[in-house]
């Protein structure tokens, strides 16, 4: 007797959505991503329909978060190959924050900007991350352009809508100007950051460093003490992924105490 097997139509969105619901939303995601069940559910879905990008992205999570890049990136690459609009910026984000592959991240974000212009990834525009990468690579003029475009996207070009700008955009623009030795612009942007988020430890730290540069010991100590106090009280950069990696130019108590 011949047993007939019926393969699902992996190109039918209703079918793939129901498989994602079964194997990922109500499957893998009911477990810790470090559990064997996480991999089993992802692998099962890949075996049924190897064209579902999300299965590869979820499968990669425990590897990227624990330094196994050889296992993580082939999976991320597959997700990008299958659904470039959904996963190019995500891969760029991983390269920027998780592997500090700034050149690689910039390529991904430039492609993402072509695919889905002016969109967001992990709360920030693609231009924000390009700015971070260029800042870390020392390409300061390019970084300045990137952050200005980032602000343009967030405000929709309306200069009256500065309240729409993420405080970390102001933080990084402030840090950029600090690195460029443009003290007034640095202060202006770091103050904007603190206006939104008073206890931001990194913004307070870099303000302190600005005043150190100006040999204003009183204000240097004031802001460094604020930074230290914020850290001790558990305040941070307020980015979702700070638990897994230090963000560019992010400081710890060690760096703050070294300056006090």
């Amino acid at each position: 007797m011949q047993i007939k097997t019926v393969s699902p139509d992996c190109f039918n969105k209703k079918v793939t959505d129901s498989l994602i619901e079964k194997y990922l939303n109500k499957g893998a995601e009911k477990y810790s991503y470090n559990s064997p069940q996480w991999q089993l559910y992802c692998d099962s879905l890949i075996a049924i329909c190897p064209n579902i990008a999300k299965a590869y992205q979820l499968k990669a999570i425990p590897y990227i978060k624990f330094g196994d890049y050889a296992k993580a990136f082939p999976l991320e690459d597959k997700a990008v190959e299958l659904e470039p609009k959904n996963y190019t910026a995500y891969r760029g984000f991983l390269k920027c924050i998780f592997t500090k592959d700034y050149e690689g991240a910039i390529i991904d974000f430039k492609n993402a900007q072509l695919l889905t212009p002016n969109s967001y990834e992990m709360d920030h525009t693609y231009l924000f991350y390009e700015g971070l990468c260029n800042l870390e690579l020392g390409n300061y003029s390019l970084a300045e352009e990137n952050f200005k475009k980032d602000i343009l996207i967030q405000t929709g070009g309306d200069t009256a809508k500065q309240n729409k700008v993420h405080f970390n955009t102001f933080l990084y623009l402030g840090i950029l100007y600090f690195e460029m030795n443009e003290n007034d612009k640095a202060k202006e942007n770091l103050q904007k950051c603190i206006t939104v988020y008073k206890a931001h430890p990194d913004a307070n730290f870099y303000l302190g460093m600005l005043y150190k540069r100006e040999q204003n010991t009183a204000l240097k100590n004031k802001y460094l003490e604020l930074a230290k106090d914020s850290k001790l009280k558990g305040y941070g950069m307020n980015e979702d992924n700070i638990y897994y990696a230090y963000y560019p130019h992010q400081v710890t108590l060690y760096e703050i105490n070294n300056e006090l």
Partner: protein
Amino acid sequence: MPNKLTITLTISGIFLLLTNQTSAQNFVLPDGEYMDTTFTQNKKCSGAYAYFYSVGGKYPENSTSLLKKVQTFLRQKNETYVNSGYITFRFMIDCEGKLLPKTEVLQTDEKYAAFHFEKKLVDELYSFLKTLDKWVMYRSTEGTTYSYKAFLTFKIKNGKVINIIP
């Protein structure tokens, strides 16, 4: 009177002893490659463990600070290396904040493909890792201390360490 074969073997043995490099090989096991497979259990710790990201367990100095330290450490050795990519060490920090000996090593090139750097560089970075002694001791809100898994990655560009993750 020793024969020619005996003399040849003796000379070869002396030659090998004089020229042999003393760096040990890594341990390749089914679940990975290790710098050290020694498993020790601190009796003060239960077997339970977390991952560093769940317990605020990143090393308490930022990437720039650690980078300066490792660059200084390597300069003292005065060696030059080549190739680019990532060298990652994965290990356990016990419930007293001590780095346990068992350490896995993962290496990739800059395109994230599995790769092997020169053993001497890997050994030097492992030696540097072992100098880090400020790992956070994780204590739960109930006051119980736990071990946690952690990692440290060295990003290499043309044989030089240019960044540290996380």
